[in-house]
Each structure stands twice: as C-alpha cells, then as structure tokens.
C-alpha cells in the first residue's frame, strides 16, 4: 500500500505525459457514479450502514488490477490539510473532503484513477489524463467499471440506467470534463459568450475547482450536464466537438491578440515574470493569474516550451494545503503568502528572461523563433 508521503512526492502521470492539445487542455477527466442495489445511498444511510458498505467495497476496489500498490485510506484517518491536498490535486471532491467516518479514497500509483467510496453515491470513480483525451480516459475507466461490476452488481434499471442518489446523474452516471486554459479569450472579453453558447447546448462551464468556484488562472472546466438519454460515446463525441471549437477560438484569439496588440501581451507576460521572480508576498489569486501568463508565454515561444510542466506543477504547489504540507505545519494566510512567493522565486530561478521577439515578430520574419499557436 502506498503511503500519503509517497503519493505527495510522486508526480501524477497526467503532468508527466504530453497529451493531445496540451497547450490549451491541461487534463481530461471522466467520472462514473455507481451504487449498490439495496443499501441506502450514503447521504441517507446511518453511519453504521456506511461503515459496513465501505468495508464491503474497499477490499474489492483495492484488488482491481490498476490499483496495485495503491493509496487507500479511510477519510477519518486524514487530517483537514491532507484532505485538502487531495482536493487540490483533483483526486477527491470538496464534498468528500468534508466527510469523515465511513468514507474512503482509493488512488492508484500514478494518480490516473481515483475512487471515492461513499461520497454522494456508493462509488464515484474517476480517471484523469493529460491533454484532450476523453475517449481514452473513458475506455480505461469503463474497463475498471466492468471489472468491478463482475464482483459487485450495481443498481441499474432498464429505463433509468445506473441509479444514483441525485437524479441529475442518472443513466450513464458519467460526467466528462476537460480543463481548458483560455487566457486570450479572457483578455479579448470573448469567454462569456463562449460560456453562454456552451450552456445552451447542455454543457456546463465552471472554475478551477468545479461548481461555484472562480475561473482562477484563466482555467475553465467544460463538462456535460446531461447524463441520461444519450450513450457514453455520444456524450463524449459532442463534448469533444465543442472543446475542439473552443480550442480553435482560443488559438484565433491568441493570433489576433499578437497581431493587434503585441505590446499588451508582452506587458502582461513581462509583469507576470517580474512578479513571480521577485515578489516576496503573493496571494493565491495573484500567483495563479501570473502563472497563467507564464503558461501563455511558453505557448507563444517567449519561454522554452519545456517549462509548461513546471508551470502546471506550480499551479498545484502554491495552493494553500500544498504549501502547508510542504512546511509541515498550519500556516496563517499571511505566512502562506510569504511562503508562496518564496516557493515561486526558488522554483523559477532558472527561468530565462522572456524573449519577446516571439510576440513582436509573430508574422515570422526569417530567423525568428517559431511561434507555436
């Protein structure tokens, strides 16, 4: 069994791997909701009931083939900071973090699969992949689902499909989402109209940490809202089609921004670089905004492309719980802001000054660096 410290030390697979459209799509995630046929759903069950269900399910989940040497813990044994770290890493939900007795989290070694026991449903299973890779993420999770279903038949109905505690998840029980980095659409004030258009066709657009959270760092989660009626493949195809359109819009917006107003782009990136390299106090929101500009910088060739991985790592490392677990103590907001700035300065020491020619020579005269947009 993997220890929490090991989980913390190991970089997730999605961060290491370069998935399709990684410049704009950070991750693709699939979540399946499943329940046992018979016992009450977690929210309605008494604690003894939940403990019983967890004890039945946990060994079966741990023995899945992908869960070899996994991390598996009863949430009652994790303190608030550890739970928050798992939330920041998108391995458990905020709802699950608020729970304790009778709930568990099982996470595989490379953090590509995580299974929550007794969240809103008996099982919430997630797979996460780098870039735009929804179909592959679903295929893997579907195999895991079938493997588990062989041992534990899930509640299923001919008409309603997989039965879930909340009717919004009925049918496939599947929520597919992609995390998109859309700085140019935000800078051009186009993102709201894109969100509205997506909403109209039954897709939800949310902030970095899901429902009701702010779109920090220009990161947006796009996901399907409807789960009943269409097959998994149809839902995924529709979502992917829309995401590809959004990617095209973002690429066009970047191109236009560089053509119309290269000074604005240079200024944003330059200020972000300066602040991240030299500031001594930095709030989370400010850091995320600057990191977004740095990421845009690597995409347009102002910084070496290889730095994207470091930037994505920092998006996690500067989160409150990550900072506190690194310093091994609870920190006040002020202390966190100081430690955050210190971490960023240290981790970005090697980052060369922005090479703004990439922005200013976007039409690409001979000899200029290639603009990757």
């Amino acid at each position, binding site marked *: 069994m993997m220890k929490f410290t090991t989980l913390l030390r190991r970089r997730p697979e999605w961060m290491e791997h370069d998935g399709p459209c990684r410049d704009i799509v950070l991750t693709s995630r699939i979540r399946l909701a499943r*329940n*046992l*046929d*018979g*016992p*009450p*759903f977690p*929210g*309605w069950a008494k604690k003894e009931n939940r403990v019983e269900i967890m004890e*039945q*399910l946990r060994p079966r989940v741990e023995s899945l083939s992908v869960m070899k040497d996994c991390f598996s813990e009863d949430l009652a044994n994790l303190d608030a900071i550890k739970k928050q770290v798992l939330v920041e890493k998108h391995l458990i939900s905020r709802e699950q973090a608020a729970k304790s007795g009778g709930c568990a989290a099982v996470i595989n070694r490379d953090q590509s699969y995580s299974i929550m026991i007794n969240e*809103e449903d008996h099982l919430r299973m997630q797979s996460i992949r780098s870039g735009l890779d929804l179909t592959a993420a679903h295929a893997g999770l*579907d195999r895991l*689902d*079938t493997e588990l*279903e*062989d041992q*534990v*038949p*899930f*509640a*299923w*109905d*001919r*008409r*309603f*499909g*997989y*039965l879930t*505690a*909340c*009717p*919004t998840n*009925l*049918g*496939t029980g*599947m929520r597919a989402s992609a995390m998109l980095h859309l700085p140019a659409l935000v800078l051009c004030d186009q993102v709201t109209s894109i969100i509205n258009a997506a909403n109209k066709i*039954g897709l939800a657009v949310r902030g970095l940490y899901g429902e009701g959270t702010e779109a920090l760092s220009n990161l947006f989660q796009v996901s399907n*809202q*409807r*789960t*009943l*009626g*269409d*097959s*998994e493949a149809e839902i995924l195809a529709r979502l992917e089609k829309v995401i590809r359109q959004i990617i095209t819009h973002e690429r066009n917006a970047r191109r236009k921004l560089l053509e119309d107003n290269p000074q604005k782009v240079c200024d944003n990136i330059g200020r972000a670089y300066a602040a991240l390299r030299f500031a001594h106090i930095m709030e989370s929101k400010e850091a995320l905004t600057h990191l977004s500009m740095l990421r845009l910088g690597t995409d347009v060739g102002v910084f070496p492309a290889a730095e994207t991985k470091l930037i994505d790592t920092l998006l996690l490392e500067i989160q409150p719980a990550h900072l506190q677990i690194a310093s091994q103590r609870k920190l006040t907001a002020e202390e966190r802001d100081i430690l955050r700035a210190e971490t960023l300065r240290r981790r970005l020491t090697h980052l060369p000054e922005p090479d703004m020619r990439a922005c200013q020579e976007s039409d690409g005269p001979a000899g200029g660096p290639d603009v990757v947009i």
Partner: protein
Amino acid sequence: MKCDVCDENTATVFLTQIVKGDMQKINLCEHCAKEKGVTDPTGFALADMLLGFGHGERVETHPQEKTCRACGMTQTTFRKTGRLGCARCYSVFGEGMDGLLKAMHTKVCHTGKVPAHAGQLKAEEDLLARLRSELDAAVGEEHFEEAARLKIEINSLEKKLRSRVSV
C-alpha cells in the same frame, strides 16, 4: 406566555397561519406541541388542529404519503433534498419523475452501458414472477404438494437474488 392547550406551562412553540385574510395564532408548550404532532412545521396544518380543539378529534395531522419501504425515504424529504434514499426509491418515486428528468436531461430513457449482470438478472426476476403466479394458482386449486415444491424453489431463487444485490 402560557400554553393555549394546557394553560399551565410556558409556551415555546408559536404558530401563525393566515386563512382567507384572518390571522390565527396559537402558542404551545413543548409538551403539548409534541402531543399534538407539531414537530415538523412543514407537515402540519394549523387549521386542522384548531378545528380539533374542543372536539377531542381530528388531531391526526400526518396524511399518508408515498414512502419507500426499503429505506424509509418520503416524498416530502425527496422533494426537499432532491436526493433519493436508495436504488429501490426509483420504483416508488420514479413514476412522477418524468417532468423533472425531462428538464434535467431532455430525454428520459437510458441508452448507454448495459451491465453484463442485467440480462441475467432480468431472466431470473421473470422466472421468479412466473413461479409466484404458479404458486398462487396451485394454492387456489388446493394442490398443496405442488405449492410446497414451488415455495422451496421460490425461496432458493429469492435467496440467490438477494445475495446478488446486497453484495
């Protein structure tokens, strides 16, 4: 302030209801509130209770409502929380959910993954239903030997289905 019912204890539960423009107020102590069934304000009608005063009748305030026999979830709680209590709830509350599901999903019929066990389970459930009706017929015709044999078969099938569904 004294309780309107016992006129002894201090009132701690205050109810106000407006009926056809007339405001009715009633003050109850904790004991009388409990006795009159005033524990859940949403499931209680003051007018009914006022009518009951002096008559010694009609204090029954909880009408029979749809309830899941498997987990005890009620229609009221489901409406309030928007969450069902267990998988069986769908056969209790599912009927009236079409409107809700249409608003959420636009379609109301699952066309996605079918678990491998579903085919098998369906066949066994159909068999169970057939055996039960055969049992009824056998009992009706006083074929008790046949009925006993069917009963054994039904019990074993039920046991098998139960063990399958509850892990």
